[in-house]
C-alpha cells in the first residue's frame, strides 16, 4: 500500500511547483496508472515514493511506514525502475543482479530460481555474462526490470516501464504486473500509453501541473466525459487547466 498525505514538492526555491498537495491511497493488490503531460509531476511523485526526492510538506507511507522517518524499512519493501535505465554499465548483467540480491538479502535458492526465470522470460540468458555496456536500450531496461523483480518486493514503482521494450517483453511485463498485484502486491507506474493504462490499470490518476485532476477506475473516469476514450478524457482534463 502507498499513501500520499498532502504531499507537495517544488523546485527553484518554490518557484516551480512540481507536486501540489497530493493526497492519494493505493491499496494492496492494485495496479495504479499515473498519467500526465510532460512536466506534469509524474516522475517527481515517483521519486518522492522511493526517496530520491524529499517532499517540502506532507508525508508518504509505504505499507504504513513513513518514507522519511524510516527509509531503510520502506526501501526494503520497495523496488524502483527509473525512466532511463542508468545502471552500472561496467558490471556484467549477472554481477549487477548479484549486487541487488546481496543488498536486498535475497537467499541463494530464491535468487537462482528468480534470476533464471526472469532472464528466460526477458530473453537475456545469453547476455547476462556480458557487460551491461554492450546491451541495447531495451536490454538495459529488461535487466533493470529483472533486478526490480529479484527481491520479490511488496511494492513496485515503475517510471515508464514499457518504453524501449519489444512487444513480447512488453506483453510479459504486463502479465507479471498483473500477477504481482494478484498476489497482494502494490504497483504504481507512470505511462504515456493510454491503451496500456486503460486495459491494465485498476485505477488511473491524471496529474497536471502538479495537481491530481482526476482519479478513479476507467468506468469512473468515463462518467466525467460520457462515451469518451481515456485519450479524450486525458486531453480534456489536461487542456482545461
Amino acid at each position, binding site marked *: 500500500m502507498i499513501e500520499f498525505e498532502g504531499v507537495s514538492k517544488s523546485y*527553484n*526555491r518554490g518557484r516551480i511547483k512540481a507536486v501540489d498537495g497530493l493526497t492519494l491511497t493505493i491499496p494492496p493488490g492494485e495496479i495504479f496508472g499515473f498519467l500526465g503531460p510532460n512536466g506534469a509531476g509524474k516522475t517527481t511523485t515517483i*521519486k518522492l515514493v*522511493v*526517496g*530520491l*526526492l*524529499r517532499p517540502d510538506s506532507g508525508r508518504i507511507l509505504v505499507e504504513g511506514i513513513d518514507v522519511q522517518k524510516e*527509509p*531503510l*524499512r520502506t*526501501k*526494503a519493501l*520497495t*523496488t*524502483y525502475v*527509473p525512466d532511463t535505465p*542508468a*545502471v*552500472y554499465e*561496467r*558490471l556484467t548483467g*549477472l*554481477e549487477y*543482479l*548479484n*549486487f*541487488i*540480491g*546481496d*543488498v*536486498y*538479502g*535475497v*537467499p*541463494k535458492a530464491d*535468487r*537462482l530460481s528468480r*534470476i*533464471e526465470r526472469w532472464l528466460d522470460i526477458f530473453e537475456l*540468458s*545469453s*547476455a*547476462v*555474462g*556480458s*557487460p551491461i*555496456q*554492450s546491451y541495447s536500450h531495451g536490454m538495459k531496461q529488461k535487466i533493470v526490470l529483472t533486478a526490480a523483480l529479484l527481491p520479490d518486493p511488496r511494492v513496485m514503482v515503475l517510471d515508464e516501464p514499457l518504453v524501449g521494450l519489444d512487444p513480447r517483453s512488453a506483453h510479459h511485463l504486463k502479465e507479471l504486473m498483473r500477477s504481482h498485484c494478484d498476489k497482494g502486491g502494490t504497483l504504481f507506474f507512470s505511462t504515456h500509453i493510454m491503451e496500456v493504462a486503460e486495459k491494465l490499470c485498476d485505477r488511473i490518476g491524471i496529474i497536471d501541473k502538479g495537481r491530481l485532476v482526476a482519479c478513479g477506475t476507467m468506468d469512473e473516469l468515463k462518467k466525467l466525459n460520457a462515451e469518451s476514450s481515456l485519450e479524450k478524457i486525458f486531453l480534456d482534463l489536461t487542456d482545461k487547466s
Partner: protein
Amino acid sequence: MKPFPALVRTGLRANFGLRAIAYRFFTEKKDRWLLPLFALAAVSLAPTLYAGIKLLAGLYGMLTPMNQQAALLTFALLTGQVLILLFGLYYVISAFYFSRDLEILIPLPLKPFQVMLSKFIVICVNEYVTVFLLVVPVLVTWGIKAGRGPDYWVAAVLVYLLLPVIPLAIVSLLVVALMRLVNVSRKKDALILIGSIILIAGSIALQSAVGRANAGGMSAQSAVAFFAAPDSILNRVGAFFPPSIWATKALAGGPGATGPAHLALFAGVSLALFLALIVLSEKLFYRGLVGIGETSARRRTLSSAEMSRRVSSGRRPFRALLAREWRIMNRTPIFLLNGVLVVVIIPVVMLLMVKTGGETEVFLVNFLSAANPAVVILGAAAFLTVSGSLNGTASSTFSREGGQFWMSKVIPVPPRDLVAAKLVHSYAISVLGVAVSTVALVAIFHLPAGQVAPAVGLALLAGMLLTIIGMLIDLARPLLDWTNPQKAIKQNLNVLFAMLAGIGFLIVTGWLAARLLKLGIGGPGVLLILAALLAVLSAAGAALLFRFARKRYAEIEV
C-alpha cells in the same frame, strides 16, 4: 548563424559549461560559496605571479650579457608545446572518437571535416587556457625587458594563437590515420589506457632526456665555447621540437628579415599541417568512427551449473558495495588511470626525476646520511603521504557514481555501510601508493628499516586522515550530472580542493614538527606526538564522515 560557427559555439559552451555554471550560481543559487573561494585563490596567486615575473626579469638580466636571452622564450614556448603535444594526444582521442555528442553530430548535415574541426578548435581553446600562465608572463616580461615595439607584440599574439596548432595537428593526423588503419574504436577502453600510458611514458622519457642533457657534463673549455656562441642555449633546448625555435626567432628576430621570415615559417607550417588535417579528416574521420558507442561482447548462454556457481550465495551488503567500488573503478579507464595507476606511476616518476636530476640526487643522499634521523623520517613520511594520497580516488568517490547515484539512494542499505565501503576502497588505494613508494624509496636511497617503519606508520595515519577529508569534500558537493567520466575525476573541483587541503595539511604538519623539534622535544617524541595527533584526528574525522553521510544521503536529490 551559419552551421560551422554555431557548431563551434555550441562545442565551446558544452565544454566549458559557462551557461550551466551561471545557472547554478545565479538561478539555482547553488555553490555561491565558491565565489569568495575563487577570489581568494586568485588573490593568493598574485604574489606567486609577481615573484615569477621578478624571477623572469632577473633571468633575462643574467642571460643578456651572454646574448642568450632568447632562450627564455624558447623554454616557455617549448614547454607549452610539449605539454600540448602530450596532453593533446589524450584530448584528441577522447574528443574525436569517444565523446557522446558524436552520436548527435554525425546525423546532422555537416561535413566530416567541419565536425572534426569544431572539436579541434575546442581543444585549441582548452590549450590556450592550460598554457596561459606558463607562456604569457614570459612573452610579456620578455617584450618589456627587451623594450620592443609594436612588431613584437603583434608577433607575440600571433605566436600564442598559433602555438597549439602544430602539436595538435601532428597528434590529430596520427590519431585519425591510426583510427582508420587499425579501426580500434571497438576497443576504446584499451585505446584510452594505451594512449594514457604513452602519455606517461613520453613524460618520463622527456624527463630522462632533459635530465641526461643537463647532467651530461661539459669541460670548462667546451662550456665557454657553448655559451659564447649566440643563441646556443636556444638551439640546444629547442632541438627537442624545432617549431619552438622558429617561434622564438619570430619574436626575438626583430622587425628585420629574421623575425618575419621565422614567423612566416611558423605560420606556414601550422597552416600546412592544419590543411593536411582538413583533407585527411574529410576522407578518413567518419570511417574510423564505425561502431562507435558500441561495445562488442561475446554472447553465450550460461549452463545451469555455471549459473548456480556464479550466482552469489549472499554477501553482506558491505562486501557487495566494496566489490562494486573496485569493479567500477578498475573497469573505467579514466578512473583506473587517475586512481590506481597514478599512485603506482607518480612515485616512480618522482624518484626518476631525482635520479636523473644529477645534483639533486647527490644532495639528497648527502642530506639523508647527515640529517637528523627524525627529519629524514618526516621527509620520507611526507613523500609517502603525497604518493598515497594526492590522487582523486577519495575526493571523487561520490561523484564517480554520476547518473547511477539513484541506486545508492534506493537500496535498503544504511549510509554507514555505503560510506564504509567507499572509505575502505579509497584507503586501500592510498595504502597501495604508500607500499609502492616505500619499495622505490628503499631501493633508491637504501633507507634503514628503523627509519622506514616509522615513516610508513605516519604516512598510513596521514593517508587515513586525507582520505576522510577528500570524502568529506566530495560528499559536500558531489558532481553527479556528468556525461563523460573524465569530468567526474579530472575536471572535478573537489579533487582540486582535496589536493589543496592535502598540501595545506602537509605544510601545517611540517611547521608543527619543526616547532616541536625547536622546543627541544627529541625526535622519537615528536614522531609519537604527530602519530597520536593523526590518530585522534582520523578517528574524529571518521565519526564526522559517518554523521555527515547520514545527513547528506537524505539531502542529495537526484
